[in-house]
């Protein structure tokens, strides 16, 4: 069964933690189309949380098109269209960049320095990927 890592005392509601973890598993193809998720009851019991919390997370995942509800069978990972997953990836990336930028600003790094740092990283990653693909 898939493992959830829940922090009950964090400020993030538990349903959101479950939602984000499933979202991530689908986006990085750990969960592929057609995979069945454990039932609400199974998850609730495994992580000791209220079943309504899991229903809420699953409901939201269905609404956003990640899961499809099959009557009597449970929740299945839905087909992820190319452009949709691209859009989701951009949304996640946007969040990460926002955090990075505000972190850098707080440390007093200026715009130019930050841009240079990012450009260097991209360059480095790019050449590493090239070597890997050749080897």
């Amino acid at each position, binding site marked *: 069964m898939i493992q959830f890592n829940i922090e009950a005392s964090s*400020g993030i*509601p538990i349903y959101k933690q479950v939602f984000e973890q499933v979202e991530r598993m689908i986006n990085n193809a750990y969960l592929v189309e057609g995979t069945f998720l454990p039932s609400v009851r199974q998850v609730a019991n495994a*992580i000791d949380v209220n079943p309504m919390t899991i229903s809420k997370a699953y409901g939201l995942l269905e609404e956003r098109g990640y899961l499809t509800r099959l009557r009597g069978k449970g929740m299945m990972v839905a087909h992820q269209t190319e452009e949709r997953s691209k859009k989701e990836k951009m949304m996640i990336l946007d969040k990460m960049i926002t955090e990075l930028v505000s972190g850098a600003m707080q440390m007093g790094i200026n715009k130019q320095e930050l841009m240079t740092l990012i450009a260097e990283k991209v360059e480095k990653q790019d050449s590493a990927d090239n070597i890997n693909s050749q080897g």
Partner: protein
Amino acid sequence: MTTSINISKLSKSYKKQQVLTELDWSIQQGDVIGLLGKNGAGKSTLISAILNINPADSGSVSLLGEDNKTLSSQTKAKIGYVPQINDEITWLTVKELILFKKQFYCHWNDSKVEELISRWEIDTHKKMSELSVGQGQRVLIILALAHDPDLMIFDEPAAALDPAGRRDFLKEIVNLAAEENKTIIFSTHITSDLERVANKVAILHQGKICHFDDLDNVKESVVKVSVISDQANNITIPHAINTNQNSQRVNGVVTQVDLQWKKALENQGHQVDITPMSLEDIFLELTA
């Protein structure tokens, strides 16, 4: 949605001390509610007034559609209650006590009783007076669950339990919650007890339920807001319950984020950060 409990203008005082002040509260069937309050906030007073064990001075309470002063025996049989203090007959053995209690109910779930006794390793040959506080509390919980009630009220149920016992008891609540239509209220001053199982949280403060909402909503709406700006002194955060500011930043805890306000500030070039808070911090802020 049916209403399980409806409380209207409930007041109660002890001598000169006012504990409950015209308290209004309505609870829907199927809710699992954590009732939070500081020590002495009146959680036990409220619970015993709801059940009419220690009647209120004024106001009214309806339980499962009936006035709590004139409950029918059918309705009483649908309610389970665990008091904070073990007031069961002490000279009976656990086994005798269970058999004694069983006679009062038309319906009694023997297999659930058996299961919990073995899971919680309770020696049924011991007298109630010989049990440890934690074991005694477990027996009370078993007695409260044995007749499969629709409405369960627990007063500090986990107070005397060790961490494993707490977790196990909470798990039992989770199982009960899974059977829809069961209404559960449990009081606690330990926020981590309710974070996993409650879907709603109620905060009792200064004689009233000052906050009652979905746990998720509480966590999403009560957050820390900070604005970093060289004009921080002139900025007021809307819906803030607690703020502090200096020349560069203003911090506050809000009960609701005003997104339009946030956007407007950001458009003016100010940085607005929103940080979620743990339920414990939220509780402390709301009852400060």
